């Protein structure tokens, strides 16, 4: 048993450890927070550390595979570390750690904490499975599990509204999964394999163009359910009844991003750039996504509930990533990939702020937040900075993805998408900045905090993450070169 073997099995560890951890957490008594909180904290910390170790190894020694089980020839359960996995897995695992920390503060006064933590950690394992899957079958498997394990988190409140939202969530997810399954079966039937490969596995000449287009749309809308592509988005705003850490993580980072991640996999690892260009659907997809971006922003402006506004903003921002991927050029894809990490950081910060506001003041509506900056100056400052990032103003990190997306649109000779991006940025300003200005400069009934403004377990993650937004936004050498490499890798035009 040596170091190399240990590293080799790390991807499996990433999946099994949170599951085992969840089960151990499940053995604690409901009211024994003093044992359970540190336990959950340590489990998520170890998972994040292991993921960092994987990424570290990937960048020094290259990727590796870990076959687990073969069902039939070409149908395998298999894990693999590759750049796309590294981005998504890394983002999710690290942010999971912050959310668990935040949950300790947020959940202190909630009921059913034990169930909450068990499923929270189980979902981590499933997300890692999605990130590290080496073929469509494995991805599909964990994708379904993620739906099931996040369901109890969505219905956590247990009231009628939550149950209704839960059913909605399940119905939508199963429609999506069904579509993916159709695509999966066609692909397997035609190509005899489901392996993710550089440059893709699909050979358009094996079937009619119409059939491949149908397959592509199955994948696009199948994964599009979780990625909240309109008109399949309705579950996301409804699922905002969940506790805020769940909304933050699952609906801004893990679940929706797993949808986006699936779309990217289907596009670049299953179809591959040659086949994608052969389908000639780039403008259709990008146009479709543009509508999602704009319409979601406009709906967001009409929302008065803070979390719902954030949810629609998520729908809009996820469109950026898919748009970047659908431009079919390296620069645009770089922008899309950068936006995975940038949006995750920004949106989780915004959600954490919203949660802190709910915990401290009990206010959920934007119209009730006038002058809240007096009560929670640091939280609202973090909110302001993240909003600026969302609009895409330097030096916060949203700017860089926007810049690459603009360049990518121009590269794809589609100036209309530049207009879409800029229009969306202005809409972002129109629905984020009023919250910030009203919080600081309108008169309200809030008083200055006597001591610390929010529980430290919540405030510290907010501050660390907002500092992360600024640092990632201003130190581009940490992200941009790698992401350019990854886009190159996916395009099969070089890179490592």
């Amino acid at each position: 048993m040596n170091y190399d073997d240990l590293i080799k099995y790390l991807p499996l560890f990433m999946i099994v450890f949170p599951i085992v951890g969840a089960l151990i957490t499940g053995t604690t008594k409901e009211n024994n927070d003093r044992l359970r909180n540190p336990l959950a904290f340590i489990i998520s910390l170890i998972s994040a550390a292991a993921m960092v170790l994987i990424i570290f190894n990937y960048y020094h020694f290259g990727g590796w595979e870990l076959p687990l089980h073969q069902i039939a020839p070409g149908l395998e359960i298999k894990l693999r570390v590759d750049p796309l996995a590294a981005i998504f897995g890394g983002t999710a695992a690290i942010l999971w750690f912050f959310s668990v920390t935040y949950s300790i503060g947020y959940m202190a006064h909630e009921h059913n904490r034990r169930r909450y933590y068990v499923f929270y950690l189980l979902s981590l394992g499933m997300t890692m499975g999605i990130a590290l899957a080496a073929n469509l079958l494995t991805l599909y498997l964990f994708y379904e599990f993620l739906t099931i394990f996040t369901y109890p988190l969505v219905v956590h409140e247990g009231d009628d509204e939550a149950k209704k939202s839960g059913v909605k969530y399940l119905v939508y997810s199963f429609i999506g999964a069904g579509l993916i399954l159709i695509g999966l079966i066609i692909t397997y039937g035609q190509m005899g394999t489901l392996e993710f490969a550089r440059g893709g596995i699909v050979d358009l000449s094996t079937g009619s163009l119409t059939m491949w287009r149908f397959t592509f749309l199955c994948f696009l809308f199948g994964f599009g359910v979780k990625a909240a592509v309109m008109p399949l988005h309705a579950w996301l705003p409804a699922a905002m009844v969940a506790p805020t850490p769940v909304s933050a993580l699952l609906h801004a980072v893990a679940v929706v991003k797993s949808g986006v991640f699936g779309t990217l996999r289907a596009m670049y690892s299953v179809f591959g750039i040659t086949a994608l260009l052969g389908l000639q659907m780039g403008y259709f997809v990008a146009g479709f996504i543009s509508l999602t971006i704009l319409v979601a922003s406009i709906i967001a402006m009409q929302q008065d509930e803070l979390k719902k506004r954030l949810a629609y903003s998520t729908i809009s921002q996820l469109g950026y990533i898919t748009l970047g991927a659908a431009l079919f050029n390296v620069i645009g894809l770089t922008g899309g990939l950068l936006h995975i990490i940038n949006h995750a950081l920004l949106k989780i910060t915004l959600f954490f702020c919203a949660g802190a506001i709910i915990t401290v003041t009990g206010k959920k509506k934007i119209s009730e937040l006038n002058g809240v900056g007096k009560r929670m100056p640091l939280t609202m400052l973090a909110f302001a900075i993240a909003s600026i990032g969302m609009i895409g103003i330097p030096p916060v990190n949203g700017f860089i993805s926007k810049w690459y997306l603009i360049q990518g649109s121009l590269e794809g000779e589609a100036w209309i998408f530049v207009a879409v991006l800029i229009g969306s940025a202005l809409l972002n300003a129109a629905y984020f900045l009023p919250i910030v200005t009203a919080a600081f400069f309108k008169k309200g009934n809030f008083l200055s905090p006597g001591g610390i403004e929010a529980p430290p377990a919540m405030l510290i993650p907010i501050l660390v993450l907002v500092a992360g937004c600024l640092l990632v936004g201003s130190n581009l050498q940490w992200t941009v070169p790698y992401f350019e490499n990854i886009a190159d890798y996916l395009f099969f035009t070089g890179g490592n």
Partner: protein
Amino acid sequence: MHQEVVSYLPIIAVAIPLFSFVMIAFAQNLPWWRNSWSVIGCAGSLVAVVMIYPLLSAGQIPVFELPMIVTPYSLTFRVDWLGFLIALITSFIWLMATIFAIEYMNHEQNRGRFFLFFMLTLVGTVGVPLTGDLLSLLLFFELMSLSSYILVVHNQSKEAYSAGNLYLYLGVFGGMCLLTGIGLIYFNCGSLAIAPQECMVTGFNNYLLIAGILMIIGFGIKAGIAPLHIWLPRAHPVAPAPASALLSGLMIKSGAYGIIRTINMIYTPGQDVLSVENLSAEVSSLWHTLSGGGYVIIWIGIITMFLGACLAILQSNIKKLLACSSISQIGYIVMGAGVGAYLGYEGAMGIAGSAYHILNHAFFKSTLFLAAGAVVYLTGELDMFKLGNLKKKMPFTAVVVLIASLGIVGMPLFNGFASKTMLHHAIVEAYEHHGLYSIYIAEKIFTITGAGTVCYFLKFLYYTFWRKAPAGMPEVKKEPLLMKASLGVLAAVMLFIGFSPNLVMTKLIAPVLNTFVLDAHFIEHHILHINFWTWNDLSAVALALALGAIFFYLAQRTNVYRLEVPSWLGLETIGNYFGKLAVILWLIISMPFTVLQNIINRLTERLYKLSFVLLQSVDYRPGQKSIFRSINISNIDFDMLLVLVALSLILIIVFYLRFGTKVFGL
């Protein structure tokens, strides 16, 4: 030519105020702490900028690059003469305003926050002219825009809040225009340098034209050029006086600076292309395009200056009068830049006039705003009809205001004279070049605006300082020392500039021209050896003064000043019109999306119901509730602990059987 040297000075000039900002943030409620760090920040920045001067005089260009910071290429600092000039003015006037603010802010709330963002705005404003590429410029520009918002809404009144909103959203809009413009330029040219771009000659296309227009809109919003000025008369007066001094004196100059950089530098053919004997067709066509653009900008400038003067005459609030005057004066500057573009290679006079007027206007406008601040600080009143006889009560301020006003109307021996004369020369040259009748008219409007300036400053001086105090005039306190000090220094600098226009010309303004693509011969003969004391120029000034005095007398007699501004012309109404227009536009633009939104909503509902019914019918069990309906994990709890333990045991055993041999080496 110029030689680039790596120097830390530009970044130090930005970093010192940034450091002060951080330090103030630690203890913003300790007066001595924040005051001293504010002064240190401004003074440090000033020293660093001044230390660039020897480098520039020796023909060196300080450059500093930070790769991959904020921009994906590199955060570049590169200071040429124009940048140096603006940065110098900025940091100097900022220092004076800070000293003034230490006293002034005593009667305001939230002092800590004010000083905090005062510093952050300095970082942005001084950073704009020091940067060497467009994205870095955008970074500092946005920083300036956003942090100055907090200064605008400082007193948190309803008026300030709505003015601030207008300022903020137009600022964001402008920033996005700039981002798009910069994106287009980078895509077409592959370079972000603030220098003549090669691609303008080799591949000028519609994208670049749009980029140019977007850049002018983006910078123009900040500068306050004609149709985009509406935020300015609302936002500048509501800020505390030191902040309005900087908004009006310096920040609108960043916009003007951007316009000059765009139309007089980036969109011109480079020197190397010009040194070829015969100009290629592409170069001539670029000059032609540029000349057309310049013509439009000249008219924008003329309209802006005239409109600003008209608005100023109608104001009774001192700060609003000064803000409208700023619009008018920015019109002069933009017009100069326009002439520079219009005349292309021979446009040195316009650019020089603009640069000089930026310098002058920064001084007198910030002085006037600070003086207005002193008035409101000592009397609590800003309406000039309720004031009077302040020359007795505030003699020092009165003298300073007189000096600044004489400067702004262009009186010989005061500082506005030289720059206004040069701008007048520029517009006359523009007329003589192509002999267009429309430019002839523009020149006449220029003169009338000069008279208008005289008229509204006479109004300001007469009502506030000269005439007998009206009944119910508030008590006047004594002028505090710190206020006197900062106003005095500014006045002294203005007097110095006024007395030695040629010195300033040769030392500061003429070198600026070397950074542009201009006819060296023309600069040598017409600018370096310019003689301001000719009969023509003096008579032009005399004409403006006489006309202005007549206007003033007539207006005084007919009681025009006392007239309420017709409501449809008032600033608030114009703002409201704009707001209504925006709402209508918004409705029109969002209409298709709203329709789409309804369709999508309906579609989602249908889809959901359909799938729900489908799932239920699959799930049909006679006599029982369907599983799907009765799903409810929300009451699950771990009384089934045993089950789970068993599950985990199974998991471990499976794991062991499958991998045990490999992992544990068994």
